[in-house]
């Protein structure tokens, strides 16, 4: 039996690839206009990455499911009212050593790194995610 190979699917899939490229270009152009980055935020992202935070936490729902979502932690912990102080105190108080509770390591971040990380988390909480996560608890 000889198979007749039609080239039609190749055309369809290349149309789809073109559509993907078009949407990607649009997305890439639109994003920097909405999100304003400062050097501190960029440094905060680096702190976030170099301590493998997604090894336990999720950020915008991506990461591990062992510890709470952090994209809205800034707001959850008081926003401009006290988010900064809470997160800072929290990171310094780790590990809690409460028996039966999951423990977070002490990362010994410097004051500078802490401020950068919090600026990054604040910036992340302002991303327009169409009101995701559904509840404040993440």
């Amino acid at each position, binding site marked *: 039996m000889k198979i007749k190979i039609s080239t039609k699917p190749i055309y369809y899939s290349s149309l789809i690839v073109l559509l993907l490229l078009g949407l990607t270009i649009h997305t890439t152009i639109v994003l920097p206009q909405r999100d304003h980055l400062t050097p501190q935020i960029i440094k905060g992202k680096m702190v976030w*990455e*170099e301590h493998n935070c997604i090894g336990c936490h999720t950020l915008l729902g991506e990461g591990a*499911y062992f510890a709470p979502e952090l994209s809205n932690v800034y707001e959850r912990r008081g926003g401009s009212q006290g988010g900064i102080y809470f997160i800072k105190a929290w990171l310094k108080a780790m590990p809690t050593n409460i028996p039966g509770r999951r423990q977070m390591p002490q990362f010994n971040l410097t004051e500078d790194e802490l401020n950068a990380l919090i600026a990054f988390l604040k910036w992340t909480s302002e991303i327009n995610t169409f009101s995701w996560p559904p509840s404040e608890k993440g």
Partner: protein
Amino acid sequence: MLYPSQAVAKPYFITAIALFAVQVLFGLIIGIQYVMINIPFITFATAKLIHTNLLIIWLLFGFMGAAYYIIPEESEQELYNSKLAVLLFWVFLALTIITTLGYLLLPYATFAKITGNQFFPTMGREYLEQPTIIKLGLFAVLCGFSYNIAMTILHGRKTMINLLLLVGIVGSTIVFVFAFYNPSNLVLAKYYRWWLLHFWLEGTWELIMEAILAYIIFKITGDRAIVEKWLYIIVAVTLTTSVLGIGHHYYWIGVPEYWQWVGTIFSVFELLPFFFMVLFVFNVVNCTKCQYSNNAVKLWALSTPIMAFLGAGVLGFLHTLAPVNYYSHGTQITSAHAHLAFYSTYVMIVLTMVSYAMPILRDHKVINHGISQKLEILAFWLMTVSMSLMALFIAIAGIMQIYVQRATEIALPFIEIQNSMVVMFWLREIGGVVFFIGVIIYITNFFMVKKKYGTR
């Protein structure tokens, strides 16, 4: 074995299943940590890092072994450069060991410092935690591998199976470039991270998986024409659905809203390739009078599409629609889907290939009688059933998590809900232990039993 250079596949397969055992072992450690027992010396993040990274690595070892085995036979040609294949094996193994030891012995931040992450930051993103230099090494290995395969096919016979395998392999290598692109805008970084992960797991790897499956089915039934006819349909469907299916990763990461529509519409159809795969294997096996008597391989090959349909297809579809994903994104549901999907599509296809090729590579007859067949089939059932149950338990935990943390008026904090899901996590851990027993039986079967009873 028709071509001596196919023997290159052997160390790849052995490494793959050995790393598989290690990976599952680290999975057990994570599982224990989920039920609130703190283990000294290793944090959750480290164990999870090794669990997910080794998965990707050993599957790559498996794919490489499969390609080095299949390609000479399909192209009717010795491997273009089998010395290169051996060299790449040792390089890849060294990279794997260095990375794993680095994760285990050093704090992640120190590892990042030592390997100079500050000069070219690519670390600390899920599945892409490897240091930048290791990523470069991995890229070199992939390039050498693609080159070797491409040159072999170029000089030999071209069939649908080996061309598809080539497209899958070269595609994976090209897409890996996105591992080095980490824009400082988090949203864009997430956007392009999926260009690597989605196009590997739901694109090029799926093509590789389909090629290996087609090869095995061809070997079982001996009818190339019908296999290629089906393969053509399956590949066409895969290509048209999976490209824009990438939208289902973009719902809540901060990109424009139209991605919710694109992702929802296209990922509905991502079930189709798996639908056709099940239809394919059962139709072909029904149509031909196959005399093939390695029952373990037949069992693996026929179950792979079924399990892929359930794990990747059904469980994926369950939370792929944007309105559902709004509630399920970033919960245990994702974890349930990831476990069953990885096992059913990629782990099972690599194990099918190993089960098929290893007896031949070890100079035994294709058919292994008696106890070794029975043990392998036992291992199959232990692994498949326990993984399905694990996925079920995690999914149930996920439903509970969604309900209590997100869907009710008075939502509870994350950590309190985790405590109430502990029964499900215990059940999952028991499933994991059974799975590990299955893995051990599978491996011992290769290294012990066949030496004694295998050759007839």
